[in-house]
């Protein structure tokens, strides 16, 4: 692994990773309807995108779902991780370990189908949830995102010096107080990372949402999927460019904040 071989492979690898994305962005400014033939610079697809009620309303649905399920999954994932790292013995420990990690390897089609069937039978027997829509998507996303949050929270809780919690106990704080005064602030950065990951995963999910959503609630990926299934369409390029722009800005801000935090520590 030396000489020309490594740099060439790595360069090709990055070309492979970025070429499609770059072409996506470039052709979003193409005047022609034919996505891959250059017809001059234009921003007309952005205008069309902003007039597309369906895209806009589904984006709003997606954001609501992502916000709610990221928040809920942080609560459930953190509690699960806390229970597994701090309570050494309780009934059902093995079950909880399995249930919290299994969603990570569960194919989305199975998760989606089984949850839909659960919602249908619950509606038949309990009358809840009445129909499917925002609530059912949020529940489904919370369940699989909680697994990712739990993994992140667990590794942080494990690496955290447990004597911090003991010291607070020793100084007179009760267990609940210790959790809010010490544990939570110490693992907060990991929870923020977990929330962001859950948010992205929820925003990105097509398969599970397709199964558990109802007629009234289409998420953004569902609308995009139905559009691109029929072929390429330039307004999707415009949408992709906007999303990529958002991510870039977010990454730059995060990087800048991290740099500043590091400098402050020094």
């Amino acid at each position, binding site marked *: 692994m030396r000489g020309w071989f*490594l740099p060439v492979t790595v360069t090709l690898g990055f070309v492979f990773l970025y070429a499609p994305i770059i072409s996506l962005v470039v052709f979003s400014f193409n005047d022609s309807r034919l996505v891959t033939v250059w017809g001059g610079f234009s921003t007309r697809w952005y205008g069309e995108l902003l007039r597309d009620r369906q895209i806009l309303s589904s984006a709003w649905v997606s954001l609501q779902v992502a916000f709610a399920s990221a928040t809920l999954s942080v609560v459930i994932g953190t509690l699960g991780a806390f229970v597994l790292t701090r309570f050494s013995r309780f009934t059902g420990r093995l079950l909880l370990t399995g249930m919290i990690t299994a969603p990570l390897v569960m194919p989305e089609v199975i998760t989606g189908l089984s949850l839909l069937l659960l919602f249908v039978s619950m509606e038949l027997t309990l009358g809840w949830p009445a129909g499917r829509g925002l609530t059912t998507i949020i529940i489904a996303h*919370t369940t699989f995102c*909680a697994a990712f949050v739990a993994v992140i929270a667990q590794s942080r809780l494990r690496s955290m010096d447990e004597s911090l919690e003991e010291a607070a106990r020793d100084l007179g704080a009760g267990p609940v107080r210790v959790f809010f005064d010490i544990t939570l602030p110490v693992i907060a950065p990991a929870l923020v990372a977990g929330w962001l990951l859950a948010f992205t995963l929820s925003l990105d999910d097509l398969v599970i949402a397709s199964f558990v959503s109802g007629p009234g609630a289409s998420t953004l990926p569902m609308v995009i999927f139905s559009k691109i299934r029929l072929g390429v369409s330039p307004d999707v390029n415009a949408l992709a460019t906007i999303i990529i722009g958002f991510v870039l800005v977010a990454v730059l801000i995060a990087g800048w904040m991290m740099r500043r935090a590091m400098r402050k520590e020094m």
Partner: protein
Amino acid sequence: MSAGNALTRSAPWRGTAWMMGKLGLSGRSLVIAIPMLWLAVFFLAPFFVLGRISLAEAIIARPPYTPFFDRAPDGSLEILASFENYRFLLEDALYRNAYLSSIRIALVSTLFALLIGYPIAYYIARAPEPKRSVLLMMVILPFWTSFLLRVYAWMGFLRSNGVINNTLISLGIIDSPIQMMQTDFAVYIGIVYTYLPFMILPLYANLTKLDGALLEAASDLGASPMVTFFTVTLPLSLPGIVAGSMLVFIPAIGEYVIPALLGGPDTLMIGRVLWDEFFSSRDWPVASAVAIVMLVLVVAPIMWLQSVQNRREET
């Protein structure tokens, strides 16, 4: 201070301690109960429903499957369960082929992801600091953009009048476009592209831990760079290879979106079969049976492997 004095003074202590114990215990159970109940209801219970509906028959009604219990004419409860769907899966070659070809496609994609990902991970792990962070960021960055749109990008690339064909034709290398969309090749590309970061990150994490002194020791003892790589680096990075391969193989096996968008009508993958069974044929019981078989054949071994690995890591 007399013993009696100490006792009376300790009585309130004991009372509080007892109450705290009681409260602490119930508080503790509450904390355990929240994630436990959520997952039991929304993760575990669905599988029982899935199993039960896989034993039903499809009917045109709401819901579109036969009930589990029925009142017999004499008023007693009858259990209506049939293994008809499973027999159907066994007899129809479509399903068997779908399972096999899912595994094949996932394996081939994993292999290619490893071949592309390893040099990149190795290069990043050996890069000096500012460059290393930037490269690592560049690997992760695409992951934060929409998965669906990244697959869509390849549609624009691989189409008959897409970027690749247009370029090749204008360069005069080919006269007529090559069919790339709607082939297994496109599916491999899609999977490798989507899951490459999952291969690179664990490999990178493993390779940065590799002690540079080991490589120096090997070359000091007379091993050429090639030999050093195959006798030292590669064996030591095996855990990273296993972790990365699992992270690509597992989601690839149940993949729906990539074969649906990039694959052709004859690209069989089990996730896609399940989806079509549910959304196109509207046969919920057969879809459930497909899911159960997928769970047993594919997911269970992976979960077992995972748990074995976890246990090994813990010890």
